[in-house]
């Protein structure tokens, strides 16, 4: 088998006295959906920021498509095909939905007409076709999440890093967007998603990595990870797994 699309090897990041990410490794095979989960403050977003070039690693390396891309700036990574969404959505608030997506589309298309065509097509794919001329700051939270996704898709990525695109959505909105994400994977885009909505992780991801206090503490299929005692303890506190096990016994 060919080398996996993304190999994160022993990445560390220190903020002063805090080791936010501690020698975390991650392997993402091409064409799959991989999830990165973990309790709040585990370092998931920090790890994403390092992979996508927004933060420099204190140590370790990132390989993408067979090349070392550690500490490359974000715009160059985007050109290589790595796109990310932001946990806190960052729309170009003064622009319309169409203009927002256009910025992404321009990465691969210099001509305005071609880029506009891509923008419209992407808007259809994520369900924003009716809102192309609305100012981005009039969208609902769900709309902004879709816009965030649309803009990154317009860059025609090979690897998509989704940082909590489902957070803040209600169950029916989640039901609407999960098939969109699955569709992207079917189209051949490799996806790594940070997600707290476990129901979505269970249904979407084939492989799950668990980060807690900066360390990768477990990996496996969603079912394996959910049953892992260290994972349960990371979320619920020391001794929780034993108590839960005990509760089952009664």
């Amino acid at each position, binding site marked *: 088998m060919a080398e996996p699309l993304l190999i994160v090897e022993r990445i560390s990041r220190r903020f002063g006295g805090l080791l936010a990410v501690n020698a975390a490794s991650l392997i993402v095979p091409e064409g799959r959906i991989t999830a990165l989960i973990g309790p709040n403050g585990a370092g998931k977003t920090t790890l994403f920021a390092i992979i*996508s070039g*927004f933060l420099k690693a204190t140590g370790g390396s990132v390989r993408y498509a067979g090349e070392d891309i550690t500490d490359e*700036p*974000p*715009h*160059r990574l*985007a*050109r290589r095909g790595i*796109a*990310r969404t*932001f946990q806190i959505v*960052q*729309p*170009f*608030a*003064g*622009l319309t939905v169409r*203009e927002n997506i*256009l*910025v*992404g589309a*321009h*990465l691969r298309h*210099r*001509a*305005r007409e071609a*880029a506009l065509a891509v923008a419209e097509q992407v808007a259809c794919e994520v369900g924003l076709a009716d809102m192309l001329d609305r*100012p981005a*700051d*009039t969208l609902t939270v769900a709309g902004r999440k879709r816009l965030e996704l649309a*803009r*990154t898709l*317009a*860059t025609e990525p090979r690897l998509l890093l989704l940082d909590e695109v489902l957070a803040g959505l209600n169950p029916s909105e989640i039901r609407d967007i999960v098939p969109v994400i699955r569709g992207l994977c079917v189209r051949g885009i490799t996806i790594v998603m940070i997600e707290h909505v476990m129901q979505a992780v269970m249904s979407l991801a084939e492989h799950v990595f668990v980060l807690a206090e900066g360390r990768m503490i477990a990996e496996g299929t969603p079912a394996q990870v959910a049953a892992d005692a260290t994972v349960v303890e990371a979320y619920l506190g020391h001794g929780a797994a034993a108590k839960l096990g005990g509760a089952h016994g009664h």
Partner: protein
Amino acid sequence: MKAFAPILIVVALFAAVPLVVHSNVVLNFLVVALMIALAGQGWNILGGYGGQYSFGHAAFFGTGAYITAILQMRYGVNAWIGFAIGIAAGALVGAIIGALTFRSGLRGSYLALVTLAFAEVLRILASVAPITGAGVGTLIKLDLRAQAFQFQSRAVFYWIILALVALSLVIAKLIERSRFGAWLIAVRENEDAAQALGVDAATVKAAAMVISGAITAAAGCFYAQYFLFVDSGIAYGTWISIEALLTPIIGGAGTVFGPLIGALVVKALGEGAQLFTGDAPGLDLVMYGAVLVLVIAFTPRGLIGGVAQARQWLTRRPAKAEVGHG
């Protein structure tokens, strides 16, 4: 072509003015207003579209003015060639300041202060260096021939500055419709998000400063030919930095016509104030301040934004609360 129709109409209307109006006072007023509009359009490319607020566009204006004057008077270079070199020098100064500031990641008020500092350093250098004529300044010899870029008739100067403004309007429109423009506006709206979408923010901003510098320098070159005199206080003075940024902000930053509208309004108000109060020094500045406060209070997106707001209000479409960017 349809996108350029408004520019064509506006320029055609302006071009007809000297055919109807022969008053030198009016023409002189319009020449100065158009020159400020040109300087303002330069600022608008970087500040209006790119959101990078420079407080030192005098650095470009002054470089254009001095280069044009010095090349003619000290090196005997033809005025038209001097004019072209002056514009190129403005672009070069833009490239240098852009590389230094944006490579080191300066944003917001830091950028404003550093650009102001660049202009001040140039002003002080120009006021002592022998080549600029130091405190005396540089006088361009009167030579009323077309090949010396000097004309008896105000109308010819008027048409030349109008042609330059027309060119700057076309450049702004072309940028608006290009990939570079989309990237530049994206950087203004959210630099991190733009970078995530593959925009090389530092390079885009530096390129904007090169274009910006060239356009504002063109206004400086014109100043030298029109008034035939430059000194450090005129060329690199804060007055031009202020006018270059006020006119687009008042007219509508990040719009094609913003600087032109702003320049006409600001200059008309300045003249009006002088009519009523005689020559009390500094009154035009008080006027600018008052207009700026009013515009920012009521139409944060400038007069053009204000017109759009009013139209929305009149057609009774429920206007969404506008959130000013930046």
